[in-house]
């Protein structure tokens, strides 16, 4: 697929991974273009998170190919993914609870001065980006275990956004949030999209999918049911794909 002559940011082709004989992801192909939000949907255990963890380097695929910007990419660990400007916001947030916001934001990529980590600089940078993402955030000098769910979420988001990601993976970013915070995340997604980032969004709420995504890829039992343009389908069409595992009749080729 080559939309408007653009090269896709990400192409995952025929990707498979098994855990002890169970095919968690079975020959799945999805892609992502700049400035696009692709929703990943499906029941729990459909393979969405597993697929995404292959892209973020947490799992290694058994078969298939990943292309980044049209070039074949080898992603064997989270460091490789970061080197390809892929950032991930995990459902669990993956924060070290005993460290403060700045230490978490820069974890694995600390700013160093004279061989020692420059905490003051990192805190200053963290204050800057949090001022943009969550101006109410004030707790910079406490472990993140002392923060509320929404505040922790904004630390995880700041970490993904700060390092100039080109490809952003968000695994249920609004699952633990209240309405106001959910709205803030939605605004952020639109803003990042406008900046030309590609975003994979794992989301259970069909309403959010219809609102935020350009396309939606539905998975069931490790296989891809299909990918649809969101403005060509209804909520019920997508629900049908999730539950029945079939593309809606008017789109089925």
């Amino acid at each position, binding site marked *: 697929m080559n939309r408007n002559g653009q090269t896709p940011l990400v192409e995952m082709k025929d990707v498979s991974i098994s855990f002890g004989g169970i095919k968690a992801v079975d020959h799945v192909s999805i892609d992502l273009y700049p400035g696009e939000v692709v929703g990943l949907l499906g029941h729990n255990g459909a393979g969405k998170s597993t697929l995404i963890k292959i892209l973020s380097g947490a799992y290694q695929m058994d078969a298939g190919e990943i292309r980044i910007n049209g070039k074949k990419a080898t992603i064997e660990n989270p460091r490789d993914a970061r080197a390809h400007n892929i950032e991930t916001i995990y459902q669990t947030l*993956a924060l*070290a*609870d*005993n*460290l403060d916001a700045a230490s978490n934001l820069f974890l*694995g990529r*600390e700013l160093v001065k004279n061989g020692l980590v420059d905490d003051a600089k990192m805190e200053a940078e963290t204050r800057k980006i949090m001022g943009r993402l969550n101006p109410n955030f004030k707790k910079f000098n406490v472990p993140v*275990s002392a923060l509320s769910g929404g505040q922790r979420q904004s630390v995880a988001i700041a970490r993904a956004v700060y390092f100039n990601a080109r490809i952003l993976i968000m695994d249920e970013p609004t699952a633990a949030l209240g309405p106001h915070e959910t709205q803030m995340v939605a605004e952020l997604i639109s803003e990042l999209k406008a900046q030309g980032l590609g975003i994979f969004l794992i989301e259970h709420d069909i309403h959010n999918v219809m609102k935020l995504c350009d396309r939606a890829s539905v998975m069931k039992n490790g296989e891809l049911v299909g990918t649809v343009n969101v403005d060509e389908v209804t909520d019920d069409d997508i629900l049908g794909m999730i539950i029945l595992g079939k593309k809606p009749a008017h789109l089925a080729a």
Partner: protein
Amino acid sequence: MTDTAQAPGHSATKRSLIDVLELDIRLLGMLVAFFAIAVIFTIWTGGTFLIPRNIFNITVQTVPVAIMACGMVFVIVSRHIDLSVGSMLAMCSAVMAMMQAYWLPSLLGLEYGNPLILILTILIGLGAGTLMGAATGWLVGYQGIPSFIVTLGGLFIWRNVNWFTTNGQSVSLTDPNLLMFGGTEGVLGAPVSYALGVAASVVAVLVILAARKNKVGHGFTVKPMWAETAMMAVIVAAIMMFVTWLSRYPIPPSKLRRMFEARGETVPEGYTAMHGLPISVLILILVAVVMTVVARKTRFGRYIFAAGGNPDAAELSGINTRLLNVKIFALMGFLCGLAALIAQARLQSHGNDIGMLEELRVIAAAVIGGTALSGGVGTIYGAVLGALIMQSLQSGMAMVGVDTPFQNIIVGLVLIIAVWVDIIYRKRMGITK
């Protein structure tokens, strides 16, 4: 940015003295416990507990456990445990003892007292410790065997490889240079000790001021200048008190006579000399300072704490957690080697049972010092203070004639009570970790 970014006095958010000084409550608690022990035994012994000789002995006896406790902090913070440190100490000690007494002199034909023996012995001893630790770390990190199991095995293995290395015999330290790491045989004397004390005070003040300047430079609020000054005064006073006390412990006349005779001289009339800082204590201070810097200001240290706080997060942040484990245990092994050098020098020989049960003292020191076994939390100064508290208790009890079994019972109780109090404190403060 001004120093006094505090709310006005009538505000509801008026901060307590402890907050203003940014004191660590745990550190405060340990210091109170330490002073309580000192006061109780000083009264009980009629003042003998506090005399320079006793303070000197307590610090010297604390060194090996305290050095290893520094490494144990990293091990426990990263959610591991090392039960093999006592046996690794014995193994390093055996290697060093055999090196200086047999292997180096016979293989290289070196005379006893040749400085090359000293250097090679130390390097090989520290290298042996590092290797043993790295092997543990590899099994834990790359093979996924729980550290409890690997080091429990190590406890048996190294203790008995040690036995074979020396054929179960004690080896006396024939190389006179090695003895300088033991304590009384290796002291810096009063003038050098005072000079070091002053230098350390200056460095401490400069470091505090530099950190403050850095914070102000980024526009952060800092504690008021009077609080900063008070902290600096306390630190400088503590350093100078310690140095002064050790510099008031005279070297006995008989020993002075021997020292002069060794150089073919006689002791001048009315000549006295003081012990001052022992080299072993200087090594401990260096280890503690370096380990603190590593813990707080290096990526390695940051990753240890991150891995302890959330291993998955560390992994997903691109940290090579397997290699991290190798480094942590290798560092632990290195410190066991260093502790072995000091322990055998103090005893002036390598005995088969050297370091026996030390692993438990080392873990206890780290835990009394506030290191959480659930990982992610711990400080180097806490562990050193923990070791000091245990040694003071034990020495004090020995001085007032408490039998050894009771000494050990009380040390055991103190360990449990320390953790208990900490748990109650955390519940009260609503701290989950």
